[in-house]
């Protein structure tokens, strides 16, 4: 059974929702969440640049996958589906020009803080470079080069053609090539 209690600031705790008879936890879903949430969160971080927003994306995608889990497993495509929901949710947020809190604490200039901050500098430079990309190019970069999806898988996730994926990827690479400091990072500047 699942309970949600509400604690109002003005009132003592009141139980307002008690859900019974809902659908059970599908086989394998818990294991999938445990095994893959880390990688999904990292992809979400690359898309949004922000851990809370990344969690939001992953939770949204997993919540969408839960009711369809058995069907997704039969199709051997649960992770593809989760990534598709993540990308589409991310693109929808951007389309709607959502103006909620977005991380703005970016390093104005890379380097100069010593070794302990080198990794932080690299992350900030990477996020700054990704911020220069339009949302669809950013999504292609994450799916192709972080999630290691093929061009056709990426196209399926984004609902576009393989040609469009190639075009987005080429343009994204050109923009990243021009991003300050990223070329040095790509050629192996910082190690984790």
């Amino acid at each position, binding site marked *: *059974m*699942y*309970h*949600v209690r*509400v604690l*109002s*600031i*003005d009132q003592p*705790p*009141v139980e*307002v*929702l008690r*859900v019974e008879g*809902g659908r*059970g*936890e599908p086989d394998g879903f*818990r294991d999938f*969440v*445990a095994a893959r*949430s*880390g990688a999904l969160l*990292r992809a979400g971080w690359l898309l949004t640049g922000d*851990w*809370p927003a*990344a*969690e*939001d994306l992953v*939770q*949204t995608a997993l*919540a*969408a996958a*839960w*009711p369809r889990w058995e069907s997704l497993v039969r199709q051997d495509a649960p992770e593809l589906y989760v990534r598709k929901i993540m990308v589409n*949710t991310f693109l*929808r947020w951007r389309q709607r020009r*959502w103006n*909620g*809190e977005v991380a*703005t*604490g970016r390093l104005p200039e890379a380097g*100069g*803080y010593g070794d*302990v*901050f080198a*990794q*932080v*500098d*690299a*992350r900030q430079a*990477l996020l700054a470079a990704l911020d220069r990309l339009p949302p669809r190019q950013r999504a292609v970069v*994450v799916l192709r*080069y*972080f999630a290691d999806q093929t061009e056709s898988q990426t196209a399926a996730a984004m609902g576009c053609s393989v040609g469009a994926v190639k075009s987005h990827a080429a343009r994204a*690479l050109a923009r*990243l090539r021009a991003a300050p400091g990223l070329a040095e*990072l*790509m050629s*192996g500047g*910082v190690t*984790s």
Partner: protein
Amino acid sequence: MNTQEERQLSDLLHRVTPEPPRAVTIEDVAIRLASEAARGRRPGGRTRPRIGPRIGPGRTGRGRAWVPVLAAAAVVAVAAASAGVATLLGSRGGPASPAGAVRGGTATPASAPASASSPAAQPRRTARPTWAPQSISGAPWGAELINPDEVAQDSLTGGDGSLYAVVSGGLDRIDPATGNVLRSAPYQSAPPLVGPPAVVGTTVWAVWSYTGHSVMLHGYDATTLASLASVTVPVAGWLPATAQGVLTAGPDGNLYLAAGGSVAVVSPSLRRVIRRITVPAPVVSVAVAPDGSRMYVSTSAGGQVFGMLVYDLATGKPVSSSSASYGGGGNLVATAGGVWGTAGTGMSEWTWFAPGGNLNRSVRVQGGAGGGLASVPTVSGGAVWIGGSHTLACADPATGAILASAAIPAAGGALQYFGRVVVVGRHAYADYQGDQAGRFGVARMTPPAACFG
């Protein structure tokens, strides 16, 4: 992956992308689904979802949506709906730490007027009779217990002739002469607090919530503790779990708040963020030099390493940096000579002084605290004060030299602890806990004249 450039980009993304601070669990997903169900939405609906439940009075309908039942039915979600703070019990192992990097805050506007649900100040409701000061046997500097309330560790602060302390469930204004609680403002649900309140003019500012996407400050009238205002400060990046001492009042009359990957400068009069200084890592603690020229920021760099960045406040640019590997870096205070803070975590802590904010020159200045207690430096009455469970000390704010110190004896085999020391008049006050009788509260001491220069 056809080209070398593509392979390099792929390698970079895998190499640089950090590990997440916490995992998403199936319980998170269940809560999301239940939340959407309560709002009558289908999973993955077309409204931007929020982290954590947003269910409140008036949203009790079961709706049309699909709802889950967990195989491991151990989840209870408690949502502080009015405050926008979610706390998970049960499967996450208990309430979220106030200082933890809790996911679950909800999106909030950049600033907000005083909340209609903010508690009003009220005279202390207590059945206890007027408290007669009790001596603390063997304790340094003639310490006596003047108030027996359960004061949150290291939450005591002073200003405008009064003491202010976070107690169980609220903020108290305490008369330093008698120890009596003069006014009390309850916290009814928000998890207080990270560090002590800050007094600016006639307003006491406290960190009301420190979770998720935003930090909420709440201002109270320094005399009546009437609720005056709340300011919600969006967080850049994330809030480190090791944050300690996140709010300080600058000499310019503004509040400086550690807000993830930035320091937010809040105008108490305008009640909004007027400046944001970005920092290349999550901020653990912040302090401002007495002349307002420098800002000291300690940052979390993983493991036992923490960094110290010194900013020129005129330009907002960093002017120096250093790091140390002895852990901590919280509870910063700044003096004319440099910056002070807490080192170590967990069972053993002590206080360091870094001349000019350079950790490479930092020195340990005092015995510190054991038993999971904190060693917290304060600046009050013209001296630096360092509490703990081993020694009480006052130090020269310019040089770091100890001016006077006294050992804190164990009482009946129990550690005695004097936390955050503040000075009102010629007395020093500290939150106290310990001795064989299990007493706690506010202690008053009479330090030697050396401490007052």
